[in-house]
């Protein structure tokens, strides 16, 4: 699965949890760029992404994600694991 395909899937989780689609997602997007993406919704979005890809993030990986690019890298790593 390439980065573009992953973005399409994770976007669905963001839209579902945040209940709006008024944002762009690319590798450099951070929480600051997306309305409503904050501490409480973050875990919900991550949980939804885990379900979509049937993976489980590690706490350390979740914490060190600075942007969507990091998220994509982690997803790729978990899919291959």
């Amino acid at each position, binding site marked *: 699965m390439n980065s573009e395909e992953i973005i399409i899937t994770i976007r669905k989780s963001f839209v*579902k*949890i945040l*209940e709006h689609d008024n944002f762009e997602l690319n590798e450099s997007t951070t929480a600051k760029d997306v309305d409503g993406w904050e*501490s409480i*919704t973050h875990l*919900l979005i991550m949980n939804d992404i885990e379900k979509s890809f049937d993976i489980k993030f*590690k*706490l*350390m990986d*979740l914490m060190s994600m600075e942007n969507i690019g990091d998220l994509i890298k982690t997803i790729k790593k978990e899919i291959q694991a």
Partner: protein
Amino acid sequence: MNLIYSLHKSFELNAKRNAFCIDDKFYSYQDLLDSVIKVRKIITSNIDVIDNNIGLVINDDLETYATIFGLWMEGKAYVPVNPIAPKTRNLEILNAINIKHIFDSSSKVEYSDFKTHNVSEANTNNSTFESIKFNESNLAYVLFTSGSTGAPKGIPISFKNLNALATALDRDEEYKLKAADRCLQMYDLTFDASLTALLPALLVGACSYTVPSNVIKYFHVYKLLEKHKLTVLKMVPSIIYYLRPYFSEINAPSVRYSIFGGEKLYEDIVNDWVKCVPNSKVLNHYGPTEFTVCSNYYKYKSNKKNKSHNGVLSIGKPFKGVDCLILDEEEDIASNNQVGELCLSGNQLTSGYYKNESLNLTSFFTHKTANGISKRFYKTGDLCFMDDDGDYMYVGRKDFQVKIGGYRVELGEIEYHVRNHESTKSKNTLVIDVKNTSDNDELVIVVESIQFDTKALLEYLNTKLADYMVPKKVFFIDNFPHNKNGKIDRKALRNIIKN
């Protein structure tokens, strides 16, 4: 103990040790003391002796912490406002208490209607430490909490109150910090629980590791724990509720103390948490802001049976010198094991809400204790009972007790059973009363989850609860609304459900 003098003594004694780690940068007690001297210089040069209450914009920096101690050493009180709170609310607070001066370390001046002071811009070279101005009856801080009328209510706490708290903590043999401790400071300074995180650390020369306000708190707590091998964690319980799915990855043998405060602490989660912190004592602190942070605590017993009620860990016994009373519905003293409103008396008790006589009349009362002395008590609004050993159990908020069809219903009891069912065990849930279209109170279970079939859950509740206690509706929400202290905002939730 006289807190202010003891703090100064500790700052000097531990000058070379680290006092704070803020944003990965360490500051020594000497740095803190230098900053305190600057603050005091600004005060004596610019602020009238009669201006006692000073605004403080709380940023995550050394200047903000130093301002608290600088003000205290000049006999003045801080009134904290959070820069991320709505400015109109902050102005309401500052104007309610006639603030003229504000300390603000922000780069941009937000409160230009006031005389603002920025410690980092002050030029106070070669200043020395002047003697401390101390008067027990002066205020140390005024905190504002949300009032049921919508206007924030001011709770003034004096140095006498604060000294009583410091003395109670100092006498407590269960909780003894040392200079080598590395302590978590995750609380916003508008939340008084910040003081029981900060003061014990500063009094022994330990280092406090702060959590900024613009980060995901539970991640940052874990990051600090891993990186700095923290030894003392004072936290709101919601931190471990969020981290729970990842407990298997957490192993922190460095932790000596886990202290919780600010919310109900569920025993089952603590049972799992102690596996992450195998060498830690766990204390459950309880206390309202009106009683200077903390009145009671319970020490969790590893591998033994603990005291809890509806799954909520006991709040234990009061500190020495604190009087607790439980009043029943008729305002008579309740017997052991009978639920009623917890009332508190002692030197930690506030003099009353700031300029709010009507609320003071209903919240405080005088009662003759067993030895014939009249004491002033505060009604906490918390429903509790005392068991035969003198341990207090937290039942719920008085205002969470609702009447359904004439029956008194305690929401915490229903929540307990909801939390025990397979379908909702690992989810955040609560039970709330909402007025239905016919203006009757109706119970609704709110689940932080995507929708699922709730038939089994409701059938289970029917086997556990009287029929009038079983909620008829289940509402699904992606995330609970929270107030700035991280507590669930029930009022906002009620509005969401209604709409």
